């Protein structure tokens, strides 16, 4: 029971008055920023990264755990009260949640979302404790060729499976890989794509990329298409659930959790598929299917739980393998790296105290979230009325501050603007941003494993095909890549699958 001991140690580290205060602060700020319209969880985390710069690593992880869950919950408040979800994982929540809010049941929708998030987050975090060390035990037996193959699966998965267009996904991935190339080669010291600039020789900081693509890109994109008439916000009182609502909610919470966690834990699983599956399941199992489409509480409870459980699930590949499977996880990896901590299978052996403290903070952050959000919901709803010019000016303000503070050089601000325009163009042309971030973060790691694999084999290409794990990965990649061809060859069957 090493992991239980580790977790208890983690709790002991977190439960000091100062650290609890920091956790509370993280949840408050995370929720407040996450509630702001136009700011999804990934942007919340990216914008709040500078908060962690001056803190010691332990406290910054505690703060981050709070921001992580707070940002997630804040996003669902926005989609229930505004009906225009900022990110794809909340689309399903908005479906029934906003209908409920319109028919005067906003308080119940927010309550089932908050309690469902708590239930899913707690179970999900408990599952991390159980599963993650197992994955680590397995992962430390893997060599570079296997890791190379796993990273390739993550590449192909984020580029080809998530999003609606493979071509656009791969284009984004390749641009991200190119950004990852910029700088000094770690083996030979050769400069690549630096064009003689000493600023670029030091590699492009992942924080600058994330903030540029998520925050600046989004702000510029919205600025170009700003809705002149603000969307209507539905007023809300203190969230509560009646006995009947509890009865209708608890099973969807559990089913949503069961669907969400595994999808979050596999590379390229994401939160969109499980939230959607959860919605379909609840509609099928409901005793009141006629309410769906008019504001059924099951349709909020299930997907919200699935969304949060999936977020917890992403922590497994993040902590055990160093693989980010969604945008928020990608930015957390960037935060780790800014402390010189290398995420990967050795993380748990090298920094066990940090890992367990982070997990304990997730439990605590999740608890604070429940305690805070039920009474504070009306306050959060007021944030939705913030004047839009101030909101987006504020995003640019904090993005600039964060990017400048990374290295303290104005060059990063120009780079940030350039990346912002790249993010703008990607939104304009429907090119997904996640593959770009994943490529930029994992590209250097990919190259390291590639070179190490071939070094071991003395340059022989057979060195790339390590053991069975690598074979399975390559088989998966080939299956994913060939799938559209196979589907096209069998048009009669495709109709059944596509629906």
């Amino acid at each position, binding site marked *: 029971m090493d992991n239980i001991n580790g977790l208890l140690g983690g709790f002991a580290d977190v439960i000091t008055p100062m650290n609890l205060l920091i956790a509370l602060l993280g949840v408050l700020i995370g929720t407040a920023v996450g509630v702001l319209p136009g700011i999804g969880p990934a942007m919340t985390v990216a914008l709040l990264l500078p908060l962690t710069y001056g803190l010691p690593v332990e406290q910054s992880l505690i703060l981050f755990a709070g921001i992580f869950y707070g940002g997630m919950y804040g996003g669902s408040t926005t989609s229930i009260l505004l009906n225009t979800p900022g990110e794809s994982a909340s689309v399903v929540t908005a479906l029934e949640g906003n209908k409920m809010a319109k028919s005067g049941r906003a308080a119940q929708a927010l309550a089932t979302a908050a309690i469902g998030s708590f239930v899913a987050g707690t179970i999900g975090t408990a599952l991390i404790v159980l599963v993650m060390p197992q994955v680590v035990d397995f992962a430390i037996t893997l060599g570079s060729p296997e890791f190379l193959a796993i990273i390739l699966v993550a590449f192909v998965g984020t580029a080809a499976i998530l999003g609606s267009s493979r071509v656009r996904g*791969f284009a984004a991935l390749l641009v991200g890989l190119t950004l990852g190339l910029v700088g000094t080669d770690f083996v030979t010291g050769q400069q690549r794509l630096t064009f003689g600039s000493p600023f670029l020789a030091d590699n492009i900081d992942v924080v600058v990329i994330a903030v540029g693509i998520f925050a600046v890109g989004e702000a510029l994109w919205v600025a170009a298409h700003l*809705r002149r008439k603000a969307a209507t916000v539905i007023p809300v009182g203190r969230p509560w659930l009646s006995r009947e609502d509890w009865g209708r909610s608890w099973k969807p919470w559990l089913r949503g959790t069961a669907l969400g966690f595994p999808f979050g834990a596999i590379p390229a699983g994401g939160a969109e598929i499980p939230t959607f599956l959860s919605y379909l399941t609840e509609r099928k199992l409901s005793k009141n299917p006629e309410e769906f489409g008019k504001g059924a509480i099951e349709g909020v409870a299930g997907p919200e739980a699935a969304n949060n459980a999936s977020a917890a699930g992403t922590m497994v590949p993040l902590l055990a393998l160093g693989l980010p499977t969604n945008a928020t996880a990608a930015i957390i990896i960037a935060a780790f790296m800014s402390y010189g901590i290398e995420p990967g299978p050795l993380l748990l052996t090298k920094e066990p105290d940090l890992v367990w403290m982070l997990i304990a903070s997730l439990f605590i952050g999740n608890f604070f979230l429940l305690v805070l959000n039920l009474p504070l919901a009306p306050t959060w709803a007021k944030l939705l009325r913030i004047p839009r010019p101030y909101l987006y000016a504020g995003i640019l303000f904090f993005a600039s501050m964060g990017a400048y503070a990374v290295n303290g050089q104005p060059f990063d601000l120009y780079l940030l603007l350039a990346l912002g325009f790249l993010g703008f163009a990607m939104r304009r*042309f429907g090119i997904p941003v996640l593959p770009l971030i994943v490529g930029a973060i994992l590209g250097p790691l990919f190259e390291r494993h590639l070179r190490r694999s071939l070094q071991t084999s003395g340059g022989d290409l057979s060195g790339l095909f390590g053991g069975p794990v690598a074979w399975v990965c390559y088989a998966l990649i080939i299956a994913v890549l060939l799938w559209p061809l196979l589907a096209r060859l069998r048009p009669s069957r495709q109709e059944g699958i596509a629906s």
Partner: protein
Amino acid sequence: MSVQDIAPATGVGDRAQYGVCAALALLGVVVIVDATRIGAATSSNDPVGPKALPFIIGAALVLISVFYALDVARGGVGEAEGGEDVELGAPADWRTVGLLAGAFVLNALLIERLGWVISGALLFAMSAYALGNRHHARGLAVGIVMSLTTFYAFAIGLGVSLPAGILQGIL
């Protein structure tokens, strides 16, 4: 959820997408040209060397630009991203974007000379103006409060590097 490479033909395709293809191809060529510049640096210790991956990525970029162009020619359209405050019906408002970029560059130019408190406040006020704020004094006041707060909280409280500029010694 079904993944579809080819969107149904909508009649008028989005021609600007060819620009994206051209940009991708150009980027690919730049990556390859830059890689040829790197001296032969492979050794028995490092059989791959620093050139291999740039060549692969550059070639893949050129290749994907061709596939992208084929997709566009077949009527493929990338759906522009929606959002809470986004209205996609109207054409892009370039004046606002240009003003925001101007405010951004001004901040980059001034941050070390005048310091974050002044450049940040200007960035906020100008951005808010560009986005339609017409309470100039209030916008500037909010900007000054924000830049002062962040300066004291981050630079002085947390030790994050934000320049004091000409206000050095006053703040």
